[in-house]
């Protein structure tokens, strides 16, 4: 019989935190307050905490307001995605990929589909490639809107004003994606060798129209926070990621680019029609919270440019290779393949080992948030707990991807 009033046994992470306190006290590093064995307090932040954007749990060791140690505990959203792949055909697995990083479903699907195509030696028609770019960039804008919106809501100088502005405009983009694929977030739109549907009538004009309006809307967001003294105080110089951290921990995406590392797979490992497109890899130099915000803002503008160019070069033709329907059964030759794809959060890699059957023998996702989260203990140590919230917001975590 479960006794619900009994104090639960501390789990491994909490035990580890307590052990580390004892060790640091034994080394004479703990703060010394009369009558207390140690001054540090172990606090569980999450898994249900509004600022962790999901079910991330941080076991935080606090000394007053200072963060002395952080132990991230993940796995609360683990849905056995890699195990599920063993019993699903390649085709059946596409909708599951949407649910890894659910904020940027199109990008994730593309990463997976691209890897299988590379493994099987399929090349989609050009119209499909261009539409894929449009979808990925639209989703990138929508994803950055969620990232920056919720981040500013965490900081709270504006309350929730910014997040509502951004979610309002994100809805325009999701409307466009819904019109194409039939779903707002769980698209199931990409197919091996093409796409499920062609663009509906009048979609291109609607998209163009939105792309004309978006830069003004992004200016509007910036005018909300850019000059706000509280916002700047909480962002500038906080949570600095150095270039050495980028190298050591494999940090990718806006977090790396904010530190001045121009690593963008659309440029450094180009795929699809990106080599033909003219866009800037947005970088900043300080690597602090503010720069990460700035990079995301700039990237939204660049994505608008990319979508406009892609709409201009949209060729006529089929969106699916061969017959009108995508192949249900696909059997790539034995071998293994890794492809990285530039997700809004960084390098979203798919590693597939094929044994020549209809099912992937082993499928592994290299999730950008998983790698970026690894830096958390180093990043948060020595900061105030309130800044820890700002820093974690600026890293932009999606737990669906981390826990898989």
């Amino acid at each position, binding site marked *: 019989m479960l006794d619900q009033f009994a104090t639960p046994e501390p*789990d*491994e*992470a909490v035990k*580890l935190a307590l052990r580390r306190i004892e060790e640091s006290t034994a080394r004479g590093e703990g703060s010394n307050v009369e009558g207390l064995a140690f001054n540090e307090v172990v606090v569980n932040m999450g898994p249900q905490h509004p600022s962790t954007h999901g079910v991330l749990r941080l076991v935080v060791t606090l000394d007053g307001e200072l963060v002395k140690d952080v132990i991230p505990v*993940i*796995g609360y959203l*683990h849905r*056995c995605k*890699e*195990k599920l792949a063993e019993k699903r055909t390649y085709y059946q697995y596409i909708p599951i990929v949407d649910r890894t990083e659910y904020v940027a479903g199109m990008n994730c699907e593309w990463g997976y589909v691209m890897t299988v195509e590379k493994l099987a030696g399929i090349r989609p028609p050009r119209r499909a490639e261009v539409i894929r770019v449009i979808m990925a960039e639209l989703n990138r804008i929508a994803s950055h809107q969620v990232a920056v919106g919720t981040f500013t809501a965490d900081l709270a100088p504006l309350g929730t004003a910014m997040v509502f502005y951004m979610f309002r405009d994100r809805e325009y983009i999701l409307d466009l994606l819904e019109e194409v694929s039939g779903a707002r977030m769980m698209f199931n739109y990409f197919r091996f060798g093409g796409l499920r549907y062609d663009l509906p009538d009048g979609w291109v004009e609607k998209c163009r129209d939105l792309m004309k309006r978006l830069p003004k809307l992004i200016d509007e967001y910036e005018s909300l926070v850019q000059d706000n003294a509280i916002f700047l105080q909480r962002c500038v110089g906080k949570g600095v990621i150095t*270039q050495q951290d*980028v*190298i*050591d*921990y*494999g940090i990718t995406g806006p977090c790396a680019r904010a530190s*001045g*590392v*121009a*690593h963008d797979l659309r440029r*450094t*490992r180009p795929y699809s029609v990106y080599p033909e497109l003219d866009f800037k890899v947005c*970088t900043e*130099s300080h690597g602090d919270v503010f720069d990460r915000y700035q990079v995301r803002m700039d990237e939204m503008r660049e994505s608008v440019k990319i979508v406009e160019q892609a709409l201009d070069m949209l060729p006529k033709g089929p969106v699916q290779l061969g017959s009108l329907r995508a192949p249900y059964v696909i059997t790539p030759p034995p071998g*293994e*393949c*890794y492809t*990285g794809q530039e997700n809004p959060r960084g*390098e979203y*890699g798919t*590693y597939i*080992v094929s044994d020549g059957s209809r099912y992937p023998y*082993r499928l*592994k996702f*290299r999730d950008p948030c*998983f*790698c970026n*989260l*690894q830096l958390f203990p180093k990043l948060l140590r020595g900061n105030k707990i309130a800044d820890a919230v700002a820093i974690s917001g600026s890293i932009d975590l999606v737990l669906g991807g981390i*826990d*898989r």
Partner: protein
Amino acid sequence: MGLEIGTNPMDMDAIAARLVADFAAALTDVRVQEPDTVVARCDRAALKDVARRLKAHPEIGYETLNFVAGVDRLRHLESVYHVYSWKTNTYLELHVEVPKSRAEIDTVCDVWPAADWHERESWDMVGIRYLGHPDLRRILLKDDFVGHPLRKDYVDLVENHPHA
């Protein structure tokens, strides 16, 4: 100041040849996988030494670990290391065989700090024990989980889930 990417343009065959020349004894089956990956096998005992030298290599320098994946190959297990070279803007995929009877391998945490969580995941899912890892706990599954689900012979038993 920015970290320069791809400042040392070498074509893939040159990189593969260079690796064969410099790591003759330790790396075998070196082949190029288009467009930008070199795939190689590495001996289990030599892994740590090879990792150190790969990272410190003056012309290629695989400085960043991308991910570690454990794979069950039925006869044996495999630990796959995917590393990135900033200088040449290329990747190296290192396959290391681990026997099932003694699924142990040296950690590369002290060479590439990023390996920490990836090795924990590989331990959690495939059951490869990384010797010398600072904190080899389960990462995605709960602490008292029994078994390693991505092994091909894994059987899910209800008795293993007392809280479910």
